[in-house]
């Protein structure tokens, strides 16, 4: 989806401002939203790609106005409602619906060290033939899917070179919509800044983008 989240190359967002001695969370509620989001994902009703897409669906003006963890909160709640973990009425009243059963949390404190230490690998140990090899000239496809994609707009249609094959990974464009993992190779593709941005870019500068097989064609 050509949404506001796909920001690479915009120029009107102002300067980057670093905060000295920044805390991990600026308010206690931010930490709670971070942890609640992780805990709710543990029910495995959705995956990380679907969660990212849900955040991308926030209308542009709201997306720009909201702070980071507000975006997390909204994305998570919309999925929780969609998958029936909570209802809007429960959120409004703050009380469980009458007669609803109490569950046992999917993520309990004893599981945190394991979750943190092992994560959720997106690589898949399946034999898939790579369509490209290191050193090959390729072009990012000019596609404009209305769903989730991790092919940034600024790279579409641009030529680059495959630098490294990282192996087989879940494909976000289908995974985000629960259409299967469609595992395929992910490559580092290096683009010249001049190919991306024209003469104003430094001739030496480059941008490396991780690209799935389905994002590429031979140059």
């Amino acid at each position, binding site marked *: 989806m050509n949404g506001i989240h796909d920001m690479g190359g915009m120029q009107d967002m102002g300067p980057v401002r670093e905060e000295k001695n920044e805390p991990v969370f600026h308010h206690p509620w931010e930490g709670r939203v971070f942890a609640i989001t992780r805990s709710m994902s543990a029910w495995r009703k959705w995956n990380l790609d679907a969660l990212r897409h849900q955040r991308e669906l926030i209308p542009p003006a709201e997306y720009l106005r909201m702070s980071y963890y507000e975006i997390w909160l909204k994305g998570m709640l919309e999925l929780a409602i969609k998958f029936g973990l909570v209802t809007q009425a429960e959120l409004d009243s703050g009380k469980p619906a009458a007669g609803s059963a109490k569950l046992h949390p999917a993520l309990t404190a004893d599981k945190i060290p394991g979750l943190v230490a092992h994560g959720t690998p997106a690589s898949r140990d399946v034999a898939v033939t790579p369509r490209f090899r290191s050193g090959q000239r390729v072009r990012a496809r000019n596609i404009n899917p209305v769903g989730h994609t991790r092919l940034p707009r600024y790279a579409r249609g641009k030529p680059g070179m495959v630098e490294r094959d990282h192996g087989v990974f879940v494909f976000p464009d289908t995974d985000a919509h629960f259409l299967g993992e469609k595992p395929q190779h992910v490559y580092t593709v290096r683009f010249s800044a001049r190919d991306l941005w024209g003469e104003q870019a430094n001739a030496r500068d480059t941008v490396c983008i991780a*690209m799935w097989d389905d994002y590429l064609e031979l140059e």
Partner: protein
Amino acid sequence: MKSTRRDFLATAATAAGAAAAGELSAHAQEHEHSHGHSHQVVPSDLALRVKSLESLLVEKGLVDRAALDALIDTYEHKIGPRNGARVVAKAWNDSAYKMRLLTDSDKAIAELGYGGQQGEHMVVVENTPAVHNMVVCTLCSCYPWPVLGLPPVWYKSAPYRSRSVIDPRGVLREFGLELPEDVEVRVWDSTAELRYLVLPERPSGTERLSEDELAALVTRDAMIGVAKVPPRKEGGAA
């Protein structure tokens, strides 16, 4: 200061938040005074909303309060850029380790006991006199949690996400880093589940330092690639 669309939005949000809550939070005011700009200010009722949400989810048995506390404690106190600094210091001190780190980053990082959530597939990229690497996630906020902790606000902000790929030298200048024209700036856009750690150049004057002393010099910003590790001053701490 030049007014931007972003500033306008932040101001509008501030005004809306203040109107809704009746006042700005003490934190927001202090924040504004401490470094002369405001982040988006959130209506203070958001804190209440989240509190009520947590109670509801605990009551329904969807989340475990102790698990929330443990997650927050992990990322506030246990996992942060000191982990990455240890990786960098070891690579500076041990060329065989550095080779392993650049070729099989996951395994080499795991040798120090780090890895896992949001760092399952690590790629370490080395800065040299000819190449300066810098990392961004233009599409969201991907960042190598096990070695750097959770990302700072600026990394997740629209200015950094949008401009790093089109004007990396301008962004680096805002961090106080001016690079010569003949150095390649290589930007890594974290579009997949690969997570990047920059191995900064080892500064001069550090030849006799122990690994612990080296680790103390390494900054988070240098491992994102928006800074260098400064040369060590003669006879004193860096």
